[in-house]
């Protein structure tokens, strides 16, 4: 806690931040938190205190795409799935397509197909578009002006990432040959 700050003000700012993040449907950016808090509020100290308050609880404070959001603790998932409506996981093809877009963005559909060495079904693109993890990002200045695709903030939110830099770097992958070895085919 900041030394110079009035403890009552700090406590109130903590409550306001908690309420705002709790109420929001999306991760709350720092600017929105600062707007409701008192002047000179120490945002970093408040986030630290709030995170500590929820440590080990059923709900945790996480940083997503540059904002803050409460999410249920990972270990509770198996029990929660019994009662909370669960979204379907993406199939492997969609996951690979998403991985290509994440690494090569902005990228055209033809480029995706070249990297995968296979044609891409519209169904796969639709799946990714439906959950909002990709979006068009302009057009490539090439014959036919094909649409370029990129990941969205929802991509970060879907996988619980603070930003794109949390993805493994391309040169980090493949360093371990064992990692490349596929599990035995069934």
């Amino acid at each position, binding site marked *: 806690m900041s030394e110079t700050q009035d403890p009552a003000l700090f406590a109130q700012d903590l409550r306001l931040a908690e309420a705002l993040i709790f109420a929001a449907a999306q991760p709350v950016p720092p600017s929105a938190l600062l707007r409701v808090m008192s002047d000179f509020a120490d945002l970093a100290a408040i986030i630290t205190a709030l995170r500590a308050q929820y440590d080990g609880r059923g709900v945790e404070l996480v940083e997503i795409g540059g904002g803050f959001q409460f999410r249920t603790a990972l270990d509770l998932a198996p029990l929660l799935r019994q009662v909370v409506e669960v979204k379907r996981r993406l199939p492997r093809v969609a996951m690979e397509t998403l991985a290509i877009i994440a690494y090569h963005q902005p990228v055209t559909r033809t480029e995706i197909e070249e990297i995968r060495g296979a044609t891409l079904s519209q169904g796969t693109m639709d799946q990714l578009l439906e959950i909002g993890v990709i979006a068009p990002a302009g057009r490539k200045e090439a014959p036919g002006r094909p649409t370029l695709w990129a990941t969205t903030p929802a991509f970060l939110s879907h996988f619980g990432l603070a930003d794109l830099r949390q993805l493994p770097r391309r040169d980090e*992958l493949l360093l371990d040959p064992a990692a490349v070895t596929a599990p035995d085919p069934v």
Partner: protein
Amino acid sequence: MAPESESGSQSLMLHLAGFEGPLDLLLDLARQQKLDLATISIADLVDQFLAVIEGARRIRLELAADWLVMAAWLAWLKSRLLLPASEEGVEEAEHQADRLAARLRDLARVRELAEWLTVQPVLGHDVFERGAPESLIETDRSQYAFDVAGLLRAYLAARRRAMGSAIYTPVPHTLWTVQQALDRLRSLLGSLPRGSDLMAFLPDHTPTPVERRGAMASTLIAGLELARNGQIALRQDSAFGPILLDLASEAPK
């Protein structure tokens, strides 16, 4: 070459439909070499791939064109690697083999990232966000937007529509005519001192530059007209200098 590759590809053949294109199968074969993808043997890989394709043909499995194209290309590549036609041919074939290896490494990276993403806690499956978010934003729609431009547009639209069509009337320019300038010159001749500047006979009110220039032109023509008639004399002491006006009788020789 791994000795069990033959039987391995036989079993693979049955799963051919499970692969996302030839590159996918190639990558899978490469992984079965259990080698670092950096030191991959393209020649061995080609053999295995062709064996799978051959096997698929033996049991009359329908093969899509891209599989056959890849098989043909790989057969060509292998022949170039083993039986180079020329020094240049070897280089070209090795370059192609390197490119294939690089593509396989790229695809392997993509697959790894996909795996990495798959084990991340996914929102809505492994972790859950607030199910009943509260909206703290209140929208106040009670106010209207008013702007004068909109009001005027509305007025013009209504009037024009009612009048049938918009009738454009140009703004009339009130230019000083030569006749007006003549009248003014004649009426003022007696009251101005000798050697007056012609410009003193301009009308009192010329609000725009165009009107002022028009008046100057008309007044000059009127002055020349009177001078031709012998009623006045004009003189200009220097180029672009003021034009001075005298009654004809007083004009110097």
